[in-house]
């Protein structure tokens, strides 16, 4: 395998628990089947303001992307997506308990993952995984995997970028398993090594004569 030690999985959405259970932090995944997008706008509108989704999301799938696609309305009511990428997921940790609990989501696809603590406390409890897009700029590869835009909802309320998009995807990947159902984070493991190197680089560099508020934070701190 060209990617070295990382295992690869081809999975179908909605995901079944036997598939999710075998995923370990650091594995690569390709997804096929229906998925939907939800980020700032949808989380606020659906989870906080309590608006019921216009379609039965749980019936459709259990995979949700933290993404606003590069897509447009090509003719009235008809949408196309050229390119796709997810956005940094750490800022959505607060919505995860409700999303996983009420909407039965089993895989959240974001960018860069969330803290190990969120995996331990929320994802593990629901037997869910957190995947991240890769590159990160693999927009054309991911865009190609979108076979069909199934529907776009809440365009009026949220604008086209924050709207709820549903897609049929074919081999959407590579995606990296960032958080697995045991609560392990891929990046947390990687960062242990990097932090050791980083500490050595700071050695011998004198600190600035005028500090900044919050400077007592060490460079190895996870900022979320």
């Amino acid at each position, binding site marked *: 395998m060209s990617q070295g030690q990382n295992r690869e999985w081809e999975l179908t959405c909605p995901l079944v628990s036997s598939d999710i259970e075998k995923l370990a932090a650091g594995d690569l995944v390709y997804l096929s089947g229906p998925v939907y997008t939800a980020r700032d706008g949808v989380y606020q509108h659906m989870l906080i303001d309590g608006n019921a989704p216009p379609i039965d999301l749980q019936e459709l799938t259990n995979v949700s992307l933290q993404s606003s696609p590069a897509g447009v309305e090509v003719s009235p009511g008809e949408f196309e997506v050229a390119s796709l990428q997810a956005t940094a997921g750490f800022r959505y940790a607060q919505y995860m308990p409700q999303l996983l609990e009420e909407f039965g989501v089993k895989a959240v696809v974001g960018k860069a993952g969330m803290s190990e603590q969120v995996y331990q406390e929320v994802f593990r409890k629901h037997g869910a995984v957190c995947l991240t897009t890769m590159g990160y700029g693999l927009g054309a590869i991911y865009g190609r995997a979108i076979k069909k835009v199934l529907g776009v909802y809440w365009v009026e309320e949220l604008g086209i970028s924050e709207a709820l998009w549903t897609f049929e995807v074919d081999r959407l990947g590579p995606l990296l398993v960032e958080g697995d159902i045991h609560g392990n984070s891929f990046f947390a493991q990687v960062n242990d090594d*990097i932090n050791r190197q980083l500490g050595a680089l700071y050695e011998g560099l004198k600190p600035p004569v*005028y500090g900044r508020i919050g400077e007592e934070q060490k460079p190895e701190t996870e900022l979320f």
Partner: protein
Amino acid sequence: MSTTSTAISRELIYQVAYETNKRAAIVVPQDGLAAFGEAWERESKPLAHFILGQILENAKLAVADARPMCGDTGLPRYYVKLGNEARIDGGVVALERALRQAVADITQDIQLRSNRVHPLTRRNPGNNTGVFAPNIDYSFEPGGDWIDIIAVHKGGLFGTDYRMLFPADGTDGIKRFLLDNMAEFARRGLSCPPVVVGVGLGGTKDQAVTLSKEAACLRLIGDRHPDSEVAALEEELRHLANQTGFGVMGVGGDTTALDVHVEIAYTHTGGLPIAISQFCTAYRRSVARVFPSGEVEFREDPQWFTPYYRREGIE
């Protein structure tokens, strides 16, 4: 007016603004492709090597399918260099209209993401234009009767920072600030490394930030500052950035920064302002020169930092 040059037509400016904007979204510039290729060849970590290979593959597919290289198409913006003798049909106001129109049209035509929203209401006009959007920055060049139009799609919510250092902090302070910036934004690949790092050193606070962004976006990878001390600092900082080991996507790897470019500006005797900007993996830039004859010349090198632009004396 003593000038006799023919005016450059506003239609031509629109067409070039449209085309550069389109290419910026889709085509990775040559220096970027070469640098990603070298990073891929050199990479010793298997996962990082695999991801760099995917980035190269993505660059190919984007061109083959004419689709944006990244799903976050960033914030389209223009840098315009006006030759001192250039005349525009309709003046600079017509030029600005043409650039704004081109951004709105290209958003629909190649399916850019409508990223620009009102900061408070979050209202999205759906075409990447609005108050102060797109950014248009200008510089000037003696003698020329042409206009350079440079489209950049700058990505990233992460990677930019500013700090007031002091002369006593010296190179140590600069290095620390770079390490801080990497530790904060390259971790988990938030700023999408490998990046081109731009450092704005000196000037006023706003100049430092502006220069850092121009240094990141408007110089070819491998280019060195003509001031040998600045050039030496660029080499040192590039080495330091890569020693952090964050690598592509922050997964651990040999290349975190494809290059580091430093721009300096004369500053207050008591201070050492510094700003850093990171130009992400979606390395998006396209450059064209428009001549009054109607000729258009696309090229790779932005040639933004001319000797005149960096001049030290009065002239």
